[in-house]
């Protein structure tokens, strides 16, 4: 197959490309330039796609003996991923830009361009498994290394995109194995630190980034009864479950910490309450993407965070296509805008975007 290997300049994508070459594919390496204002050097582990990263990707391609190109997707990235990120926070929701990048850029713009230019598939360094069944259907599964599993952020791609994707690192036992393999192959990125946090907020200061885009929007911090407890400088800076950064002059009556329960963009209010108030057991989500044909009610497990365990749940697909998920026990800090992924064991059943949460078990012990 003719495979486009997306090379970020990191060790995972380099080893993934190497494995694709070993598998006998005709591989071409492409580095996506996603930032309009690229730094020369990567400063520490934050951020990505600096010119240094492009250079590391080029060296990896040299070692693997594959052609290498840099494609500038920065305009598309800004107009979809970054713009969506800012708009979601402004609307009082909590976005996951990595999910949107996979949805709009990596397995959309990049994949579409690759297919149009004659490629059969895109290979990435994501930790996940694309399992092909005897009848040809493809399933998306968690990676063997559950600590590194990234099926959660990939689930948004849907089965058609999955059909054109390769994840050569899916069966790796651990990150250390990847690094050892990189070193053994002579890839200089074997010791490069992993990047984390949001790639377009290189200094890690998300609130500062949002403030620079949205400006100061002062409003009230209130409790569930509407009593004003303090002030904020922009509701966009708060997310459900957040505890830090709440400037409330006095402690709660029960002496316990307060958490953000919800963000109300219209009234520009941030609603806070106790940890117990955060607990929800019903998650509603829409814009569902399915890998399995599901109808009505079914058992599954639900994951609502990139690095969080999935909890047992029962999902219900409603006539309008949205999903209601009832969990056993309780979840905390589930914010509208987040990605909800449903699993059947290691298999991804589907992905949807959280619209609302609630407590069905009223009167349960607090």
């Amino acid at each position, binding site marked *: 197959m003719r495979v486009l290997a997306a090379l970020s300049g990191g060790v995972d994508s380099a080893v993934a490309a190497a494995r694709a070459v070993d598998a006998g594919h005709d591989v*071409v390496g492409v580095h996506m330039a996603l930032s309009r204002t690229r730094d020369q050097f990567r400063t520490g582990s934050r951020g990505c796609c600096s*010119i240094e990263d492009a250079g590391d990707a080029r060296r990896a391609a040299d070692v693997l003996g594959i052609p290498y*190109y840099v494609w*500038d997707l920065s305009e598309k990235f800004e107009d979809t991923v970054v713009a969506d990120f800012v708009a979601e926070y402004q609307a009082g929701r909590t976005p996951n830009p990595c999910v949107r990048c996979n949805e709009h850029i990596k397995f959309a713009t990049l994949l579409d361009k690759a297919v*149009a*230019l004659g490629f059969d598939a895109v290979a990435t360094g994501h930790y996940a498994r694309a399992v092909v069944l005897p009848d040809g259907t493809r399933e998306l599964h968690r990676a063997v290394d559950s600590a590194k599993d990234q099926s959660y952020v990939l689930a948004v791609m849907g089965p058609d995109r999955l059909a054109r994707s390769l994840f050569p690192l899916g069966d790796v036992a651990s990150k250390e194995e990847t690094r050892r393999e990189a070193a053994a192959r002579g890839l200089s990125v074997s010791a490069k630190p992993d990047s984390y946090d949001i790639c377009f907020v290189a200094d890690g200061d998300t609130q500062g980034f949002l403030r620079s885009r949205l400006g100061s929007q002062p409003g009230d911090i209130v409790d569930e009864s509407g009593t004003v407890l303090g002030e904020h400088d922009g509701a966009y800076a708060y997310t459900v479950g957040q505890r830090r950064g709440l400037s409330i002059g006095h402690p709660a009556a029960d002496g316990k910490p307060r958490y953000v329960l919800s963000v109300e963009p219209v009234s520009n209010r941030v609603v806070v309450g106790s940890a117990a108030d955060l607990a929800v057991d019903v998650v509603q989500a829409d814009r569902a993407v399915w890998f399995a044909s599901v109808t009505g009610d079914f058992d599954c497990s639900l994951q609502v965070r990139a690095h969080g365990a999935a909890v047992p749940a029962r999902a219900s697909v409603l006539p309008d296509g949205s999903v209601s998920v009832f969990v056993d026990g309780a979840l905390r800090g589930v914010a509208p805008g987040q990605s909800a992924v449903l699993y059947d064991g290691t298999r991804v059943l589907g992905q949807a975007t959280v619209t609302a949460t609630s407590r069905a078990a009223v009167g349960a012990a607090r």
Partner: protein
Amino acid sequence: MLPEATRVLTEQLARTGNPSSLHASGRAARRVVEESRESLAASLGARPSEVVWTGGGTEADNLAVKGLFWGRRTHDLRRRRILVSAVEHHAVLDPAFWMAEHAGAELVLLPVDADGVLVVDALHEELAAHADEAALISVMWANNEVGALQPLADVVALAHQFGVPVHADAVQAVGQVPVDFGASGLDAMTLTGHKVGGPGGAGALLARRGLELTPVLHGGGQERGVRSGTLDAALVASFSTAVVAAVAGQASFASRVGALRDTLVDGVLGSVPGATLRGPRSERLPANAHFTFAGCEGDSLLYLLDSAGVEASTGSACQAGVPRPSHVLLAMGVDELDARGALRFSLGHSSVASDVDALLEVLPAIVDRARAAGMATVS
């Protein structure tokens, strides 16, 4: 590299001796340097004392822009304006921008027409209004992207009328069109080895005696104090050999390669819908062809051509290999979307008819496919 240039380089590499040293080995190396200087000067209509060896074209351009600016300012602080054409190579543009940001210069970009040719009237207006403040003018002999030959005779005549020195980056022109420094009236001129089949890392600034050039590199005082740094006799000899050969072969090169280029242009325009030739049809470098392909992205075209074994350029300066719309095309008034689908085809002394045939065979399908891939990066 030309075989004779490689031969001379290899022979001379065996020599020891610093051309600045006074002992026998040094003098022998110095002789090689001076003979190279004389040969190169003769082939370009210059005097040996007008040749300043540099480490390439970029260094020569920097020396010209910065050296002339600072040289003029020692006598008259009013002379702040640096006049450059809007289509100069980055090796001229960037020093000029830098001088404007850091050295108190004022940058004046001279406009070009839709073919990439300097609008002489605009220069006239500028000089008529601000001649007393003009430090220097830099207009290239021929543009590297679209091949446009610039009206240097007019520029020089105007400039000297107003007492302003003129520098020309002739990097692309040497070996392709007749270049005579003395006859041109230019005050300074850049050339480089790797564009004439010579070694990389070797270039020269031709500069009239008496032209005040503040050095960029200070040190041991070589090249009459204008450009310090130990000379590499082997590199200089190889460079000079290449220049002499290129100039000697210029007429037949222009005729032979120009005909191939014309076949290429006719072939592309005849077989590829949406292809537009950029730059003048006739007053252009004989080895240069440049097109934009509507609805295509440069990186798609580049990838597809590369895969088909055809090496072309998207023609724009870039870091980390990301194509950007060329400042040359934008200065010519080409729409930014159209400018993204640009390809420059450069022929050379080894180009033959089958190369052109091979390109014409694969290009239509490649453009179709690139067009289908569309403008993925445009929102």
